[in-house]
Every structure is written in structure tokens, then in C-alpha cells.
């Protein structure tokens, strides 16, 4: 359903931001759902499945806003689009790994989502602003859950600490890919939609560093009073359709049932 779009806002750039957020949530939600029936503790199995459903719900929120601008339905975007047209970061598409990796990924992702949503709460595009507020209410509990696990597993047993440490070494450069600058992002910054991904990354680092330090886990960064410098190469490319084969396999899996009977009313 087309809407009256405020003509002073950069429509194409907003569509790109909505798509990036929707794709990140859909793909990570799918990866999280792979723990259903396999998590090391029954309660975490349920909690992770719950988070998976929440993330897919968030992707639906963003796809619905996108539909108002492009006319393409969430089903078309999720189930009919070729994997090479997804703009999720590579980070969310990597296999679920061990539970430590999934916990670390969820933590790094949720903290980034929180920072981005808080920025969008002041955005001049009303539908986006409202959606950000709504999602943040739910996101607060993901953040709480992940912070709880980071602290307890970081300071838990020598094995849990070691696994968390390895997971962070793997996940951190990948996570930096969440902040890859979007095409036309400068227009979003100019229009006051948000401050841009470079700024968000700096805020994210400021948020996660003390939590990880407290959990006796370290990051490949250097911190002075005023700034944090990253000492590793970001695993970026996803926003520009440069994906790993992991995404292809995931999207095959995600779309398999839908594509098995085309044009069916599910």
C-alpha cells in the first residue's frame, strides 16, 4: 500500500537501510532457530527459540515498512528473492558454531541493534521512529539475557572461559561488518535519520567493552580515554551483496518449503 512519503526525506536511502535491517534480523533469526532442540540446556533451548521468533518478528516489522515504499510484500522479500540480492552483513549468515559462538554473536548483534534503534527513535521518518520504539521494548530483554550469559560463561569454568574467548576472536571481526557503510548513507545522515554506521560502531564499542572486560574477556582493540581503535580487519561486504556460500545454503533452506508449491496460500 503506497503512502504519502515526505518529499524532503531520502527515500531510496531509507529503503536500503530498512532492507539491511530486515535482512539481518531474518537471517540471524533463522540461525538462532537452528538451536531449537539442540541447545545444551533445555531452558536455553527455549530462550534461544524465543529470541529467534522475536528477531524474525522484527524483520517482519521492517519488511512491512519497506512494503509501504516499494510495494513488495514481506513474503516476496523473504521467500522469493535470490540469495545474492540479500543485503545482510556476512556476520549473521555464518553457521551457528558451538553455543559459545552463538551466545557471543547474539550479544554483539543485540548490543548493535540497541545502539541503532536508540538512534532511530529520534528519526524524522515517523513509521521508522515508531517501529524502533516498539522493537526496543523487546530488545531490552535480549540484551539482558545475553549480558547475563556473557558474564556467567566468561567467569564460569576454565572451559567456558576458553570457549567464549575463542568465540570472541572469531566473531569480533565479523561483527564489525554490521557497521559497513551503506550506499547513499551520507543522505541518511544529512536528513537526520541517524548519525551513520561509523558513529554507531563507536557507540557499540563503548557499550560492549566494559561488559566484556568485566566478564574477563578481551577484544582486539586499543582504548585511550577518548577513543577506541580496532586492531583487526572487518569482515564486511554483505551490504554490497558480497556474501559467503553460507548465506546461499541458509536461504535455500529458508525458502525450500515456500518454493516447493509456488503461489500457494499458506
Amino acid at each position, binding site marked *: 500500500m503506497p503512502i504519502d512519503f515526505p518529499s524532503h526525506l531520502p527515500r531510496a536511502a531509507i529503503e536500503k537501510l530498512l532492507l539491511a535491517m530486515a535482512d539481518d534480523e531474518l537471517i540471524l533469526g533463522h540461525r538462532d532457530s537452528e538451536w531449537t532442540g539442540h541447545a545444551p*540446556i*533445555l*531452558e536455553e533451548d527455549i*530462550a534461544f527459540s*524465543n529470541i529467534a521468533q522475536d528477531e524474525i518478528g522484527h524483520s517482519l516489522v521492517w519488511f512491512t515498512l519497506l512494503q509501504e515504499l516499494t510495494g513488495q510484500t514481506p513474503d516476496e522479500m523473504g521467500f522469493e528473492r535470490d540469495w545474492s540480492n540479500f543485503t545482510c552483513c556476512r556476520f549473521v549468515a555464518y553457521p551457528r558454531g558451538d553455543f559459545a559462538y552463538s551466545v557471543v554473536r547474539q550479544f554483539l548483534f543485540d548490543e548493535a541493534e540497541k545502539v541503532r534503534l536508540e538512534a532511530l527513535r529520534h528519526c524524522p521518518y515517523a513509521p521508522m521512529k515508531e517501529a524502533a520504539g516498539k522493537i526496543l521494548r523487546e530488545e531490552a*530483554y535480549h540484551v*539482558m539475557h545475553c549480558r*547475563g550469559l556473557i558474564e*556467567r560463561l566468561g567467569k564460569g569454568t576454565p572451559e567456558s572461559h576458553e570457549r567464549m574467548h575463542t568465540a570472541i576472536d572469531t566473531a569480533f571481526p565479523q561483527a564489525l561488518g554490521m557497521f559497513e557503510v551503506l550506499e547513499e548513507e551520507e543522505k541518511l545522515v544529512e536528513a537526520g535519520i541517524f548519525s551513520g554506521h561509523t558513529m554507531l560502531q563507536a557507540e557499540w564499542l563503548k557499550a560492549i567493552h566494559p561488559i566484556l572486560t568485566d566478564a574477563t574477556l578481551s577484544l582486539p582493540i586499543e582504548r585511550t580515554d577518548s577513543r577506541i581503535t580496532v586492531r583487526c580487519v572487518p569482515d564486511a561486504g554483505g551490504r554490497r551483496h558480497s556474501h559467503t556460500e553460507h548465506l546461499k545454503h541458509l536461504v535455500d533452506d529458508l525458502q525450500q518449503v515456500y518454493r516447493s508449491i509456488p503461489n500457494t496460500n499458506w
Partner: protein
Amino acid sequence: MTDTQWETYEVFHQTKKGDAHIHVGSVHAPDPQMALQLARDQFARRLKCTSLWVVPSRSVTITDYQDENFFAQTTDKSYRDPKTFGAPDKLDPHAD
């Protein structure tokens, strides 16, 4: 054999402010805060909920099923049963 599971917490759920908290089950958790979060995921997602309590299962003192005498009524005490008058479901606090 060592139990590698986290300890269990009993979960009590309240549907409406002022109602009693009802025991709904238990969760494994490493500590009370995580127990509350995990209880939320398991017991408060679909049911309406206004409050949750979690209590370490080891803190609950229980009766022994073997000790049947504990609850036995060996002599006739039917005179104590309120059989001859009806009690209303709700009491009117303003009645005299």
C-alpha cells in the same frame, strides 16, 4: 555421578495484581536472576503475567509421602467441617 545441570528453581506465576502466585513448574538456572529470565521465557510468554517469583528448590521444605500419618484423620472430626452453612466466594468487607 555428578549432576552437571544447573540447580532448579520453583516458579510461581501471578495473573493479576492482588491474586495469589500459583506454582507453575520449575527451571534450571545458574542463579536467581537468570532463573527469572528463563522463567519468563517458559511461563510468561503466552500466559498473561503480572509477576513471577522464583525460589531455589532446595529452599522448599517438603513432607514425606511415606509418612501417611502426617495427614491422617483417625478420629471423627466431621463436626469441624462447615457443612451446614454456605460460605460466599467473596466476603463483603463492609458487612457487619
